[in-house]
């Protein structure tokens, strides 16, 4: 039975690795300017973790195969090198892996979080709420009017709680249920939630960031490929969590301008 167990372990290890090697299930195509180091980091980690997984399972299987049917006269033996070899192997192998992954990881993380958005980045505001995202564009004046939480009303479709009558900056603000961005233009996304915690996840853009009640957070990214993508919520926010999503259209500058004009007319 020991030998059968060993074979099973090897078979499981190989079968588990195949979909990874073939990328049957893999990350969506990257359409961001900052995603390359993240993808590289993912591939490197997958190689290191994958090799660790397969080799350890093989060694486990090998030893079970070899030592599970002892003959009566057999004596126990000790691994040459003993525990010291194991500790050194763990410290050196994993230690190096840790240092390498850690250092490269810092670089990848820094490209996302430690680089400020460019001064000319296009500001777009996103508000999360149970169970929808709404977006706001500043309009020709380039300024967002203030939000009045007590004015927020689903009933009157005043999702952001703007007071267009009294706040001049709000007058030309454009509120939409879909997000559109011009291709190859940096976006500065200003995030807040009106109720509980939510999250903004676009796999293709390599961004995921929680909305935190009481905090104004921001992200910046540049989309490089025209197309229609999905924004999904990844922070459990209530019974409609599974259905909290919005479309993100990456458009050519011309299409974007037209889209914005159309949305402005609807306000």
């Amino acid at each position, binding site marked *: 039975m020991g030998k059968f167990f060993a074979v099973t372990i090897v078979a*499981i290890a190989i079968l588990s690795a195949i979909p990874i090697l073939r990328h049957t299930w893999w990350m969506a195509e990257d359409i961001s300017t900052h995603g390359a180091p993240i993808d590289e980091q993912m591939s490197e980690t997958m190689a290191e973790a994958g090799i660790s997984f397969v080799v350890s*399972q093989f060694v486990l299987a090998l030893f079970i195969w070899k030592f599970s049917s002892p003959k009566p006269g057999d004596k126990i033996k000790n691994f040459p090198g003993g525990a010291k070899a194991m500790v050194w192997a763990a410290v050196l192998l994993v230690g190096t892996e840790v240092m390498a992954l850690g250092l490269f990881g810092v670089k990848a993380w820094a490209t996302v979080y430690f680089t400020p958005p460019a001064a000319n980045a296009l500001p777009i505001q996103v508000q999360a709420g149970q169970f929808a995202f709404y977006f706001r564009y500043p309009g020709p004046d380039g300024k967002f009017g203030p939000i009045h939480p007590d004015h927020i009303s689903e009933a009157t479709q005043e999702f952001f709680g703007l007071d267009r009558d009294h706040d001049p900056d709000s007058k030309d603000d454009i509120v939409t249920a879909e997000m559109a961005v011009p291709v190859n233009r940096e976006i500065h996304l200003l995030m807040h939630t009106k109720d509980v915690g939510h999250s903004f996840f676009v796999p293709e853009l390599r961004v995921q960031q929680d909305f935190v009640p009481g905090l104004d957070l921001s992200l910046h990214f540049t989309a490089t490929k025209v197309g229609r993508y999905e924004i999904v919520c990844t922070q*459990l926010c209530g019974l409609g969590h599974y259905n909290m999503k919005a479309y993100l259209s990456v458009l050519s500058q011309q299409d974007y301008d037209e889209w914005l004009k159309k949305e402005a007319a609807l306000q």
Partner: protein
Amino acid sequence: MHDVAKHDAAAHHAPTSFIGKHVFSLDHKVIGKQYYALALVAALIGMSLSWLMRIHLGWTNAAIPGLHLLTKNGAPGDVMTPEFYLQLMTMHATIMVFFVLTTAPFAAFGNYFLPIQVGAEDMPFPHFNMMSFWVTFVGFLVLVSSFFVGTGPTLGGWTQYAPLSALGEVGGPGEGTGVVLWALSIAIFCVGQLLGSLNFITTTLDMRTKGMSLWRLPLSAWAWFVTSCMGLTAFAVLMPACILLILDHVAGTSFFASSNIVINDQMQPHSGGSTLLWQHLFWFFGHPEVYIAIVPGMGIVSHVLITNMRKPMLSHRVLVYSMGALAVLSYMVYGHHMFVSGMNPVSSLAFSFPTLVITIPSTIVVLIWLGSLYGAKLRINAASLFALGFISMFIAGGVSGFFLAQPSIDIMLHATYFVVGHFHLVMGVAAMFGIFAGTYFWFPKMYGRMMNETLGKAHFWLSFVGAYAIFMPFHYLGLAGNVRRYQAFSPDYMQRFIPLHKFITVAALCMGAAQLIFIYNLIHSRFWGKPATDNPWQATSLEWSTPTTPPPHNNFGDKLPEVFHDPYQYGVESSVGDYVMQASPEKVKTEHDEA
């Protein structure tokens, strides 16, 4: 250390009434069995809930006959509503994490065997011990009662992120009374674990018999000791957090809810709270909790493997130091649950490094296990199969930790099925395998009968293959962006995941069915199993030196044992075979020396 000469057997009277013997028992062995029974009931409930969830994920609009009996409004026409899915999910996780993974390997086996393995007649505070079980039991009842109260249990997940959990019914069904009952249940559970941890620590440090130095403790005893130290600090943080959460509901406070929250066009009456505060408090407990679930498994598996390899581990001390390192580091890594939470990105890097470093002691443990297998005379039985299966699962679930330790990759994997696959393998399945290994190994001592080996092996094979079939695909789904905690996969790009979810559901139902073999084996062997001898596995530690099987009320009869050897003297030549027991005064050649 306990002095044999001072031991007064008469001071430890066996109870005579049914209630004193089986219900409000002060005997650590009965309390251990009570914990085990509680964990078993909880595991069956938790598993049944996961079956319902899995069926719903594979076939979202399918009616599940009889589902309406479980809920007032959650299953019109026996079809699960989105909120009922989330409620089942929350209860599945809470029951499994607290009342199974914490209760069985630590409280159940630890209660039964720690005092015996150190050579004591009981724990130092038997009343605290009894209280710890009954308090835990009440906690369980409170949690389950939320199914029958108001709008049902909370839907906020076992992490209960604020402010969803702090706002009351306005946040969703179960977010009022359901959350209060959840937090109350967990606070009560914490009291039970604190009492238990105190007893474990004192037993280990103060109740050891003559000759039982700390280094002569078996690895299972070390694991329980390390775990109880973690429990003492981790549960002490979770309990006040739960109390604050309850206050937000019943006393009008705003610890976890910020200002300007608008739900249903209404401003909520909260201000000034911090939603990230809950996450910090929760995960400061939550990450050590992962190790509270798995470290006892490491100890049990080491103990079981050594007996079945007929040789000690490459190094007893290195394993103990590694478990200690895991315990200490487990407090420094909790922030990796919060990389995308809006926490300062510099903190993310600060939490990332210790998270990567914690893989070093984990790797050392695995390599010591693998290296020790070399040259073994390995016996294959249900207990050793589950112990070896534990190692395989621990490796499989462990390597995915490399990914989640890195904030940049976490952007892609956070809150996806990758995480669900990771923790189910490394702390769910692995810990369960530890429980199974312990059960097949210790059952003869606990009940005086052997378990059926054939059924045990069948149980193993189905569970081993089943666990991989369920949880390995979770990783693939996560990589492809499948978000967790969705009751249906509504985004367009997730449509292609549904066939794989159907496959996982079938695998889960099969693996679940395999657990019924175990339950049958447990009950059948309890009453009709082959009678066990005092030491059926030719093992060395003190639990196999008791004068009767199961052990008498005071464990060792009139005289506490004296210990003469390190715990694992296998592969030696003695009068009884290839081992010598800790309590045997026999001198042997080539004794393994750890001290």
